[in-house]
């Protein structure tokens, strides 16, 4: 309460001058460092050397920029949980303000939705729903921070990379790169600072959902959660949905029920594909849109796209979690019980 009544440090109208100054800086920088056509790459770029090799397959393991993004998001979420939410809950206040209030409102909405759909299983399903939503939300919104996706290390370009950007490029030419600064021996550059020399830039942090490994991993987690809650609620009878042996004995439509069960298996596994590609496609398209708009109209035009991506990130996070919740709630319903209602 005391915080709200404290006198404002800044007078009215100061912020608009800050915004104007940033736009002026933007115009100046674009004039000085003209934008370059971005190189769009699907696999995540490694930002470290090989850390270790896997014992059996011998594949090298290295940290990629999308993994770094997930780690940062994890630290952020855990930090907020332990150092912001927990003290707020212990303070015994009835009404929360600020970030605690926002998170409370979000989680309350999520819980009400879960309770309306899942009924008595709400307490089991809610943590998974909330975890997925919060993680994906954090990871998606990280894309909007300036510097994510656009500041990184220059790697030597292979011929294919260079060929992709400029067909008439002679890779043997000396590359001139505009460095911002160096960390140790690593040259740090901005994405627009690379002159047309065939070097590619690996950003330090890239939106995690632009890596299929992240989205497929998350989809497999939610797929497994659906199966586990199905078995927990119905026992082994859950698998009767897929391999309906009892239906084979029935006369008439029994065999068709069995075939329907086989199709259920296919549709169950297609959930992984649809979950992962929905998130991946939305965020990857958003990343490309941001890069391309930033290249075509370098001044201020990205702002609208940033607003769009803000909405897309929120909706995709909620949709990913909500679909998991709905499928989990469906898995707790007995197949036969449903038939009896009709």
């Amino acid at each position, binding site marked *: 309460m005391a915080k709200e009544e404290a006198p404002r440090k800044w007078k009215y109208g100061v912020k608009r001058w800050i915004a104007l100054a940033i736009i002026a800086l933007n115009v100046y920088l674009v004039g000085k460092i003209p934008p370059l056509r971005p190189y769009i790459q699907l696999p995540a770029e490694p930002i470290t050397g090989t850390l270790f090799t896997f014992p059996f397959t011998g594949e090298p393991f290295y940290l990629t920029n999308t993994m770094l993004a997930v780690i940062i998001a994890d630290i952020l979420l855990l930090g907020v949980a332990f150092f912001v939410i927990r003290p707020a809950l212990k303070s015994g206040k009835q009404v929360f303000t600020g970030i605690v209030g926002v998170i409370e409102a979000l989680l309350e909405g999520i819980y009400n939705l879960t309770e309306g759909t899942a009924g008595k299983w709400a307490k089991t399903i809610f943590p998974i729903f909330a975890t997925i939503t919060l993680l994906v939300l954090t990871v998606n919104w990280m894309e909007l921070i300036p510097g994510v996706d656009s500041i990184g290390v220059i790697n030597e370009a292979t011929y294919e990379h260079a060929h992709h950007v400029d067909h008439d490029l002679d890779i043997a030419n000396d590359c001139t790169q505009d460095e911002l600064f160096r960390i140790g021996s690593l040259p740090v550059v901005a994405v627009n600072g690379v002159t047309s020399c065939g070097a590619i830039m690996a950003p330090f942090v890239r939106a995690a959902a632009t890596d299929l490994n992240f989205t497929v991993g998350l989809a497999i987690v939610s797929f497994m959660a659906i199966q586990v809650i199905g078995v927990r609620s119905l026992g082994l009878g859950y698998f009767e949905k897929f391999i309906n042996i009892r239906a084979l004995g029935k006369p008439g439509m029994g065999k068709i029920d069995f075939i329907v069960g086989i199709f259920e298996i296919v549709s169950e596994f297609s959930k992984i594909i*649809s979950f992962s*590609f929905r998130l991946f*496609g939305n965020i*990857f398209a958003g990343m490309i849109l941001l890069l391309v708009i930033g290249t075509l109209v370098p001044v201020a035009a990205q702002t609208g796209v940033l607003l769009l991506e803000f909405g897309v990130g929120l909706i995709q996070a909620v949709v990913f979690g909500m679909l998991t919740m709905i499928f989990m709630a469906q898995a707790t319903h007995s197949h036969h019980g449903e038939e009896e209602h009709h």
Partner: protein
Amino acid sequence: MEADAAKMIGAGIAMIGAMGAGLGVGLAAYGGVQGIARNPDAAGTIQTSMILGIVFTEAIAIYCLVVAMLVLFV
């Protein structure tokens, strides 16, 4: 060079699927607006399910986009 041209044509063809998604989103919004016009009190509920439906429909267009981008960039 010819492979590049084929890639670009392929990406263009892949995006034809977005037509269906456009129709679907239009239909969803049509239904939603009609429902809200008939019963403005239910606007909140209708909007939620409308947005959910639009997101699912949009996912089809996103699949097309993913295919097009895979054709172009991989």
